[in-house]
């Protein structure tokens, strides 16, 4: 089966800077590929090449088997793009934006309007549809942006950091909508700086650093490399910290670290939480914080590269 997205040895230089130093990516149809990396890793450049906005200096990029430099027009008929910054017209209303893109895709006026209304409903913007985009909140703007990239019913959608700068609560809304985008068989390439986001959305993840793919795998595989999750517990009463530590050691099989009243311990699976909660309750230890954490992007990079510095 032809990959919906494929790049082979992609190279792009801007002056003295090498943005991409030979990048291979691949995504099967109907899947979500997460491209994870810090600022400046080359994520946006890879997306811009795939979306035909920038030409690569070397290597190939294929969308649906079509070469982005040779068959740019055919590629543009198949893709939707949501850039890192809201790529809609702020002076128009949300609805006018969607109708405009529909008209540019050669929908008839009535069809463009119908499509706009459908997308506003789907992205929960029906009420805001008649308002100018400049009055929208950050989360509404991102949702309109996602809707705009769906006007053409694209086979492949590129989302460049779709939740950067959003509050965590708003992030969940956008995630829910991104998940719905693959429901009808579309393929999504999503760039992100958050391991949590890649884990929540992607079928496979490519980790990008300094213009190279330094790791690739399913979220589970990557987490295994990095060492799984961390359980964090903060007892309400500092006097109970030793009791809680002993309890965690029993459940997790490792002795926890203590820093500023917060106990952390590496755990192997989600099941631990189900054991810890009743055990804490049985021991009468009240907690103010209890969380199962994924390794942070910094930890992922430290494990993969041995470097501690991660840009941004």
């Amino acid at each position, binding site marked *: 089966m032809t990959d919906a997205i494929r790049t082979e040895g992609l190279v792009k230089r801007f002056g003295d800077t090498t943005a991409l130093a030979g990048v291979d990516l691949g995504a099967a149809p109907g899947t979500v590929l997460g491209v994870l990396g810090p600022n400046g890793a080359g994520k946006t450049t890879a997306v*811009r090449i795939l*979306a*035909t*906005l*920038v030409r690569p200096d070397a290597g190939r990029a294929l969308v649906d088997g079509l070469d982005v430099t040779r068959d740019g*027009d055919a590629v*543009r*008929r198949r*893709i*939707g*793009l949501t*850039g*890192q*910054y*809201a*790529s*809609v*017209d*702020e*002076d*128009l209303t949300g609805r*006018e934006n969607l109708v*405009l*893109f529909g*008209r*540019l*895709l*050669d929908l008839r006026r009535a069809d463009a309007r119908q499509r706009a209304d459908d997308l506003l409903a789907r992205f929960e913007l029906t009420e805001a549809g008649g308002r*100018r985009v400049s009055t929208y909140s950050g989360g509404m703007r991102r949702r309109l942006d996602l809707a*705009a*990239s769906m006007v*053409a019913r694209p086979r492949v959608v590129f989302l460049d950091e779709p939740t950067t700068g959003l509050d965590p609560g708003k992030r969940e809304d956008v995630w829910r909508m991104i998940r719905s985008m693959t429901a009808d068989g579309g393929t999504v390439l999503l760039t992100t700086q958050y391991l949590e986001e890649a884990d929540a959305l992607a079928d496979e993840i490519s980790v990008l650093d300094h213009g190279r793919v330094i790791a690739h795998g399913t979220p589970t595989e990557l987490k295994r490399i990095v060492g799984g999750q961390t359980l964090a517990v903060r007892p309400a009463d500092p006097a109970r910290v030793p009791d809680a530590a002993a309890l965690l050691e029993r459940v997790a099989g490792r002795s926890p670290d203590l820093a500023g009243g917060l106990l952390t311990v590496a755990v192997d699976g989600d099941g631990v939480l189900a054991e810890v909660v009743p055990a804490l309750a049985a021991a009468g230890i009240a907690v103010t914080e209890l969380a199962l954490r994924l390794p942070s992007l910094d930890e992922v990079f430290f494990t993969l590269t041995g470097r501690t510095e991660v840009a941004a």
Partner: protein
Amino acid sequence: MSALARHTVVLAGRGLTKARRNPGVFLDAIFLPVVFLLMFVYLFGGAVAGSTRDYLQYVFPGVLVMTAILAGLTSTGLSINLDIKKGVFDRFRSLPIPRSAPLLGTVLGDVVRYVVAVATLFALGLALGFRPSGGLASTLAAAGLAIVFGFALSWVNVLIGVVVKEETLVTSVAFLGIFPLAFGTDMVAPADTLPGWLQAWADVNPVSQAMDAASGLMLGGPVRDAVLATLGWSAGLLAVFVPLAVRAYRRRA
């Protein structure tokens, strides 16, 4: 209709909607010519022509041409420059439309500015007592010719708007350009009162031809050479700067 024409018209409609939402964008197109006309007529009129009424007849055709030039120089290049910096430019470029359609659409949508500016100027001129003796058809022809010339000249500014990064540079160039072009002519005073070097520039300045043509059409007098020269200059400007601007726009990443 070809894809380019169809998408250009759709994008021109976008420009018109934006303008309707922000009528403030027309302020400079309306305000500048009004200020210039009032200033010339009431400050210099008495001194140059002996009466403000006679001077209004003399200065109006020149201000008409300057109005059309200002309408183009103060807007299109700037709006294109701002568009390119915003994300919407990327989205247009990722759509299956001709790459030059957003540029052509913006330029086409901006034509409404010329109409608004020129109509305002005529309303004020007529209210102050300007009386074109050449008849309605010739007067409309003068307005049309001024707009064609202003439109052609605006493509220089469009090219700058596409190429430079800083939007302030776009407006600076426009305002630096307007002085030698509009004032290096016999617009405010007869050419024989100008110093020799300025007279020499006024003789070769294409804006002089456009002003002579507008004056001839509205007030009577020989017009053929000036009209042909103005159309020739307009065609030349368009032939050079439209392809340059379109090419630069298509390549802008």
